[in-house]
């Protein structure tokens, strides 16, 4: 599809999309029934005072529309996504709301999304000129990227009869990491199933046993000084240790499996990766679909593996 055609279709859809959504609350439904009743009564009897009451009721509906529009018209929203949400675990969705002028009351904020839309943040008052962060607790049932298109800001102000909503287009992506499960049992064979590769390195600054003491040279790290021996001998001595064996493990993933099975595998791999990383191993990931994370260690690397597992089986960007 050409870019021009895409633009045209987007504009066409926007043209037909109502600018505001209006939902009647239970109290609003009763109010409307009463209004219709009073209207019928006025028509039936010709009683002018009933017409007056009817006029008041109808004008209250109009006023409700005007005041609620003042609340949502100029509102600006910034989405604040959580860093590492896990599937089936509650996490905070947050939005920064701001009004250049005026003020808004009784606001509720949610994502226009079939899953994330159930998480609603509420705010009693939004003054002008300052950003207020609204949070909501959400839970994602499955891992994977969620494409968020818009944020829906609603208000029941002023009378609670109607809930007026405005959808603010705000494209974004929420990457839900695999859910937490107990790590699978250790494989019997180091290479069985999960593909393990080990190697032992010897280095002078490792974390293994004490190898020797020698004099500290210029420019060397003072944190390596063995202070007790240095004090005994009167010269600065530094510690040299054997390097600790660092297992290097590359996890293998078959991402051609059906979605539910793939979710389970990813969660198990995630649990395994986290366990191994916590033990100090260098962990990598390779999948049949071409996803590849080089072995590494540390918290940042853990996030990289979890993100790769979250995207496994989902087309689009990786990493």
């Amino acid at each position, binding site marked *: 599809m050409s870019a021009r055609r895409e633009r045209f279709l987007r504009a066409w859809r926007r043209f037909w999309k109502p600018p505001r959504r209006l939902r009647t609350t239970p109290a609003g439904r009763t109010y409307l029934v009463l209004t219709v009743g009073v209207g019928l009564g006025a028509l039936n009897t*010709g009683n002018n005072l009933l017409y007056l009451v009817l006029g*008041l009721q109808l004008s209250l509906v109009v006023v409700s529309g005007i005041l609620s529009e003042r609340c949502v018209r100029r509102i600006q929203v910034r989405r604040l996504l959580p860093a590492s949400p896990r599937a089936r675990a509650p996490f905070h969705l947050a939005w920064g709301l701001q009004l250049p002028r005026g003020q808004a009351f009784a606001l509720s904020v949610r994502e226009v999304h079939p899953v994330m839309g159930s998480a609603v943040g509420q705010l009693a*008052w939004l003054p002008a000129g300052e950003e207020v962060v609204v949070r909501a607790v959400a839970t994602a049932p499955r891992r994977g990227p969620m494409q968020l298109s818009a944020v829906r800001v609603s208000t029941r102000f002023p009378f609670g009869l109607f809930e007026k909503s405005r959808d603010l287009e705000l494209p974004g992506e929420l990457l839900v990491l695999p859910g937490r499960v107990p790590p699978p049992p250790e494989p019997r064979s180091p290479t069985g199933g999960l593909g393990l590769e080990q190697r032992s390195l010897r280095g002078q600054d490792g974390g293994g046993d004490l190898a020797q003491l020698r004099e500290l040279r210029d420019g060397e790290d003072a944190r390596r000084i063995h202070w007790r021996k240095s004090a005994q001998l009167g010269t600065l001595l530094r510690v040299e240790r054997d390097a600790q064996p660092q297992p290097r493990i590359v996890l293998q993933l078959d991402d051609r499996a059906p979605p539910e099975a793939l979710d389970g595998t990813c969660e198990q791999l995630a649990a395994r990766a986290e366990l191994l990383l916590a033990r100090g191993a260098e962990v990598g990931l390779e999948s049949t679909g071409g996803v590849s994370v080089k072995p590494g260690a540390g918290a940042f690397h853990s996030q990289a593996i979890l993100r790769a597992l979250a995207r496994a089986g989902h087309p689009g960007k990786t990493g």
Partner: protein
Amino acid sequence: MRSARLQLLLRDLAAGAAFAAMAISGQVPVWAVVVFVIALVLALAGRRPLSDGRLSAVILFGAVVLVYAAVLVEQLDLVVAACVTASLLTAQRLLSRPTGRTTDQVQLVSLLMVAGGAVLSADLLFALCLVVYAALGVLAQGLSVVAEVPGGPLPPIGRVLRPLGLGVALALVGSLVLFLLFPRLSWNVAARRAGASLGGATTGFADGLRLGGAGLLKSNPRVVFRARIDPDPGTDGLDAYWVGRRFDTFDGVQWSSAGRRGPPSRQVLLGAPGRKLVRQEIDLLPAYGSRTLVALDTPVRFADAESQQTTFSVRAEIYSSGAREVRLVGPSEHVTYRAFSTAGQDRIPPEDAAPERTRRLQLPKGLDPRIPVLAETLAEGAVGDRAVARQIERALQSGYAYTLELPGRVKDPLADFLFDRRAGHCEDFATALAVLLRTRQIPARVVVGFHGGERAAGEYLVRAGDAHAWVEAEVDGYVLRLDATPPQHRSAAGIGIAGWLLARWEALQIRWLDRVVEYSLLDQSQLVQRIRGRSGQTAGTARAEKRRDEGAAVALAALGAAFLVALLLGRRGASNDPVELGRRLSRLLRRGGRLGPGGWLDGARVGEAELAPVREGIARYREARFGRRPLLPGEGRRLVRQADQALRGFVALPLRDLGAQRSGRDHAS
């Protein structure tokens, strides 16, 4: 906490106003009023004992069953029963634990009560209650909606009340506009007659006039009828007699009349119409409470009577009851008709035959012998019937005092008035004059009706306190009106500031009835024609139209001024808007050809030392818009002004740069 208390207070007061809208009709049973008032007082005091919803619901259900049982045995009107049910439900909700849901329920049931009030009452007080209910209800509901939201701190009350106040104003104006424009295409299948509101009818004509008792009517300020007179006398206070009924038989205590009843008709002629007649369009209000029609002295024709229902009018038939009294055939609380009188003519020939003349000369049996002697004394020196009548009239006016405080019933009230107390009210004066004239062989009778009339909105209002009695005597072949009551006591008694206020209220009430309660499809079409400027104007109505147009112009000007003030306030508010600041700076820089590449503020060519204010403005714009450092009140305007002054000292950059910049987009916009 303070907000919650205020919200409950406003809610409860709104419910009270809604109940008052019903109660002013006077049709709500006293026990229901007592129950609601107790509930309201308890709620306002913060006592809400009905936390057990089930028990109170059962009690409420029982009460409602009893109410509708009363309807079944025809002890209670169905509409009144519905209103009572709404009031009981509101009372129960007022005393329940306050929640957002309870508040919604109170407001909705209050709305039902207001609608019930609209059906039961046509009083101006209803409008007052409606306005109070709308204002308090809107404020309470708005506060409740904000307080219900769990997130974040609650706003200061003033911040919420400001938009809600705007909402109240818009709602009231809107309701008025919708009321005027909503097409009056009524089916009229269930119209209900409006009652006389609180107090009921206050005056009326009985079959007889009995002397004695206290003159309470004289201090009653309620308007009983209004009249539009053509030709318009133009005076604020009318010194005129409105004839109701004539009495020619006196038994010593009570006056009565006899006569042959005429056939029902659309019009009744009481005499030969003269050349110059005064036309009156008379509106007997529900407070009048009688079937006797009144007209300016001396009426010669009554016609076109219509019984006014809430939304329509029905032709009413009238008849002559003899003794020159005209009555409605059936009862009606609100009647309009036309009357024609020969007002201003002094010499009216007597209309009756000889037997009636004889009756007007009869004296009561057992008349106190001192009375003929007194008549002779008072008439001493006067020659001719006319002079005698005038002399006795003057003697009574000057020799006797006016009072409303009478001891009650006495055996011979006339003798008591003339010889013992020497004080009385208009009936005593009229009776004394008529009897004294009869002792001098001058035929006389007592006439009861009203005296006076107060101008309001181009017509004359007559109050219950204007009720009066006087005498018609036949002298020299003509009817002569005589009034022995001292002139200052003929109309309603003065009642000070309260009376003045009441008079203004009554005038408003008249306008309310005219322009709201009786607003019709015809009025709507006239309104549309007036708006289109196609209304046919006579010279007489042109002045009134002009005055009305001036009023409309003043109202429009006031609205325009309010709009301008709102606009200015809005602009003032916008001076703190960073987007607006960026837009204005961009405009200034574009004019000077100094915008950055692509027409953005970023990269604007403002490196010169003299352009520091412009740089400051751009920096503050960025901070305010993206750096969470909002502009202070008025800061935006100051920055723009300084930037403008700084840029004025510089020559605009070459035109080619300008063209390049104009093609770009404005970053701030």
